[in-house]
């Protein structure tokens, strides 16, 4: 060990004599050299006079370590003016590189001893936790590096990688709700099938009041095969935020022979942090060969080694029972995820709990109750997010504070107690059955008009099934995950072997040259190992490469789009996230079909921009491939729900006009054509509301008129409204089976109406002659919008050529609208809509400038 001069000496010092020679044994506290220092002191005489004088004091420097002196770094007579100068090298008999409970495991000395010569506690020499299950064993950096090299070489020899596996909601889901046991016993319970293979264990000193607590563990489908296959190419570690006892019990269930995980289990007792997971805890030196699977990205700080899996949510509404130790998920996230998960699975929407319902209507929205919720949900979401972000900061900051930890433990206990007490599963099932009854009766009324266009139809409206089971077991995540892990493994070893053969080829060449060359050292061998942090992202980023995504209606207002989970995930898969629809945008991921961005995308994208629901992104990420967008395309045509009142119908009828005015042609240039077609179409479409082939034709023409000079004075307008309402009154009955009419259409459709009005006003000034037709036009529009299966989307628009020139014209209309201002806005639009409008205006004028 290299000895240095401490800061506590009185510099400058002059070395007068070296008291030890090289190879001498040096004890602790033994004098190493003597030196002289000078200082100003106050002297006095017997008369009381005092004066300052400089005096020299000789003293000796004592060794802080024991060992054999190797050599001196200073000479006799040297003057040293500052600290931290090397004095001597002393070889210690023990480097204290591995310590246990504050003792060196080799020499048994107490590492926390300190004395007046101590510069640095010996315990600081070994600070790294290397062992999964014990925090009292620490090792030094050198030792850790050696261990790491050893481990890597072993993995390379067996062609494996390390895989860190999270438990809760990744490969299992746990609950303490005793309802599960009841259902297991009751063979007639609708949930019996789902829970019959749920495993249980008792933790004695756990749960409220330390009375012991039964845990019910549901394994993710396919787990056994997954672990077996993956363990052939990965060395698996468990890293969980559960307690040690919990983790051990789970390991006993999923790996009864301890072949897969062995003792490589790290729980929150040893984690060192209760809020974040840290790969350095397990792999202190480097993480080149480590892959993580977890359902939470935030706790890993979105480490590049992470493969994020969809949370396993079998026990509906239970979530992660150990998550009270983790920072809270941002407010809107769970709902979005829940909705996303609910999509492909026939899970019942109603059971998702209040928060989860927030966003569902926008995706599945076809029940009347849900129509009522979204506006409330929207406004709450941003607030919730702010709160949780703050909480997260607080939680992060105080993560290691014992008081906080205690509080978290208490909170966890409370959560468990609440779960035991409340039996949320039972409640949900009861609620579900109650709703079944209600829906059953409602279904009788609605029968026949449930032509669901949405792929994510909920099963709550199936009238044939008498009782619904709350728990569904359809998860397929692990099968996908296994493929992904295989891919990463293959890629990693491809790169490694390529590099290896390159290196060997070089050596062969040199050998042929006749030069004798020594084998590459073992160290350089390890240098060839590629880094997962590079391999994994590169594999992932190919998935959505070239995709430019704009989110719409997915992220609550006021939340930074770039920092949301979906955005981070999408970015890690190679997509680019943009705030607004632009030239390069390829996809708009929209939760609703009437948002400003969607309309903009329709307007500007013209088939180039694919408008998909969030499920597309989820599935792409899930499958690690860019899935075909077609099944996910949002229906961008206008649809009416059966429960809209007149105003809504009217306004909605006009929104397609606003949104499609761009793609649907040169309206202003040929004003007469639409009016001609109008006279015949309404009746036909009314007669055959379900003939979509026909409607495609009809609709395009309808759209034409809508953006076209549909003139009308203000007096005409109100008359038309009435007429239209009357007309629709009959229409709604036979054509309301569409599933897309979301509760949010109110907001966006008003906007659409507004745009429409503008168009009309403009036309007022331009073309009065159309007035006579206006009434019919309105009727026609109403019919068009009453037709529900208008599944025509922007994608289907074939006229790519026309688009370009239409653009200009359409923008013109937009500008004109701005100029004309708002005549009929007496009833006060909300600020939000105003803002949207301004944005639209701006965009319009920009485009105009470009065109």
């Amino acid at each position, binding site marked *: 060990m290299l000895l240095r001069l401490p800061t506590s000496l009185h510099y400058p010092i002059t070395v007068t004599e070296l008291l030890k020679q090289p190879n001498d044994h040096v004890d602790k506290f033994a004098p190493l050299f003597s030196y002289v220092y000078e200082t100003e002191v106050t002297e006095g005489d017997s008369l009381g006079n005092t004066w300052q004088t400089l005096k020299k004091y000789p003293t000796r420097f004592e060794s802080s370590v024991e060992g054999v002196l190797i050599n001196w770094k200073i000479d006799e007579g040297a003057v040293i003016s500052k600290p931290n100068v090397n004095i001597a090298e002393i070889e210690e008999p023990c480097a204290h590189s591995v310590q246990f*409970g*504050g*003792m060196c*495991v080799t*020499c048994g000395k107490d590492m926390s001893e300190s004395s007046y010569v101590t510069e640095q506690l010996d315990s600081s020499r070994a600070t790294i936790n290397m062992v999964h*299950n014990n925090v*009292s064993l620490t090792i030094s950096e050198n030792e850790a590096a050696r261990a790491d090299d050893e481990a890597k070489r072993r993995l390379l020899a067996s062609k494996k990688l390390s895989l860190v596996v999270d438990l809760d909601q990744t490969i299992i889901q746990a609950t303490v709700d005793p309802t599960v046991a009841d259902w297991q016993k009751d063979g007639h319970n609708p949930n019996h099938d789902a829970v019959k293979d749920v495993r249980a264990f008792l933790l004695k000193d756990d749960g409220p009041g330390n009375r012991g607590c039964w845990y019910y563990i549901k394994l993710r489908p396919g787990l056994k095969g997954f672990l077996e296959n993956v363990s052939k190419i990965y060395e698996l570690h468990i890293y969980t935020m559960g307690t040690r006892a919990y983790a051990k019990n789970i390991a006993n269930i999923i790996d009864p022979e301890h072949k897969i995980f062995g003792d490589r289990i790290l729980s929150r007792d040893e984690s060192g942090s209760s809020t974040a997971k840290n790969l350095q805890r397990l792999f202190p030196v480097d993480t080149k060969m480590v892959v993580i699977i977890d359902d939470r990205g935030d706790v890993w700080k979105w480490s590049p080694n992470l493969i994020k899996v969809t949370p396993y949510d079998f026990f509906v509404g239970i979530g992660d029972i150990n998550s009270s130790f983790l920072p809270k998920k941002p407010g809107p996230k769970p709902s979005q995820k829940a909705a996303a998960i609910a999509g492909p699975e026939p899970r019942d929407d109603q059971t998702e709990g209040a928060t989860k319902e927030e966003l569902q209507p926008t995706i599945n929205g076809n029940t009347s109750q849900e129509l009522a919720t979204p506006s409330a949900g929207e406004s709450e979401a941003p607030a919730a997010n702010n709160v949780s972000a703050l909480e997260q900061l607080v939680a992060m900051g105080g993560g290691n504070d014992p008081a906080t930890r205690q509080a978290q433990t208490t909170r966890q206990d409370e959560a468990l107690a609440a779960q035991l007490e409340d039996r949320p599963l039972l409640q949900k099932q009861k609620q579900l059955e109650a709703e079944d009854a209600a829906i059953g009766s409602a279904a009788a009324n609605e029968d026949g008009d449930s032509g669901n266009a949405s792929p994510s139809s909920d099963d709550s409206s199936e009238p044939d099934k008498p009782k619904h089971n709350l728990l569904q077991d359809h998860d397929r995540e692990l099968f996908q995950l296994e493929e992904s892990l295989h891919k990463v493994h293959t890629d990693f070893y491809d790169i490694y072997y390529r590099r290896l053969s390159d290196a060997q080829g070089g050596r062969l060449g040199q050998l042929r040259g006749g030069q004798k060359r020594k084998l590459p050292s073992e160290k350089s061998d390890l240098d060839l190992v590629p880094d997962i942090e590079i391999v994994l992202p590169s594999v992932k980023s190919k998935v959505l490469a070239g995709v430019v995504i704009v989110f719409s209606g997915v992220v609550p207002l006021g939340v930074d789009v770039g920092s949301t989970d979906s955005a981070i995930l999408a970015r890690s898969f190679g997509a680019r996230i943009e705030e607004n629809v632009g030239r390069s945008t390829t996809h708009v991921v929209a939760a609703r079909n009437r948002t400003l961005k969607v309309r903009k995308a329709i307007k500007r994208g013209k088939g180039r921009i694919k408008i998909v629901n969030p499920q597309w992104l989820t599935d792409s990420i899930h499958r690690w491939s860019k899935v075909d967008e077609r099944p996910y395309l949002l229906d961008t045509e206008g649809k009416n729900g059966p429960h809209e009142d007149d105003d809504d119908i009217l306004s909605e009828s006009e929104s397609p006009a606003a949104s499609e005015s761009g793609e649907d042609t040169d309206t202003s240039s040929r004003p007469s054509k639409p009016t001609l077609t109008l006279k015949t179409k309404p009746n036909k479409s009314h007669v055959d509301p379900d003939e979509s082939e026909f409607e495609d034709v009809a609709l395009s023409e309808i759209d034409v008129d809508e953006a076209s000079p549909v003139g009308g004075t203000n007096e005409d307008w109100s008359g038309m409204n009435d007429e239209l309402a009357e007309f629709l009154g009959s229409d709604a009955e036979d054509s309301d089976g569409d599933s897309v009419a979301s509760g949010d259409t109110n907001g966006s459709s008003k906007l659409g109406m507004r745009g429409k009005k503008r168009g009309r006003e403009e036309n007022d000034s331009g073309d009065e002659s159309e007035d006579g037709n206006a009434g019919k036009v309105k009727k026609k529009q109403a019919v068009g919008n009453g037709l529900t299966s208008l599944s025509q989307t922007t994608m289907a628009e074939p006229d790519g050529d026309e688009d370009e020139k239409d653009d200009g014209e359409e923008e013109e209309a937009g500008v004109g609208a701005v100029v004309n201002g708002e005549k009929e806005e007496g009833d006060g639009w909300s600020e939000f809509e105003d803002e949207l409008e301004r944005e639209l205006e701006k965009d319009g004028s920009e485009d105009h400038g470009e065109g």
Partner: protein
Amino acid sequence: MYFLHDMERTITLHPSFFGPRVKEYIRGRLMEDVEGTCTGQFYIICVMDTDTQDFSEGRVVPGSAVAEYTVHYRAVVWRPFKGETVDAIVSSVNREGIFADVGPLPTFVSKHMIPSDIKWDPNATPPQFTDNGDQVIEKGTHLRIKIMGTRSDVGSMFAIGSIKEDFLGTL
């Protein structure tokens, strides 16, 4: 090593326990409080002579209603010493060495303190130290170890051990 040790403890008792059976309560409290604990120097294994224990007069603490009793008692205590040879059960093994429990005392045997013919085998199931002969050290194995050092914290003790001597190692 085991000792009989005389000790003293102050026990506070809530007024609801005052009555003819107060001594029983105190005795119960004493057992509950001290048996199985670690003072940092030794482990208290068992409280002895419960009949002849010496209780002081109860003294009501001013300002509260609880009474304080000072109890003199004798207990069997166990104190590990450096150089002592003890039997232990392996609790886990890893490449750095062996964790073993000597009764309540967590002990670690470093790989430097293991005979050189007993090697770490990470590929075995479960991972183990083995000489590829009859000596296999894995979780649950009984070991005879020599304590090389102890260290005490507040309420807990640690020890490091060695099996690198004759007659030490697996039993």
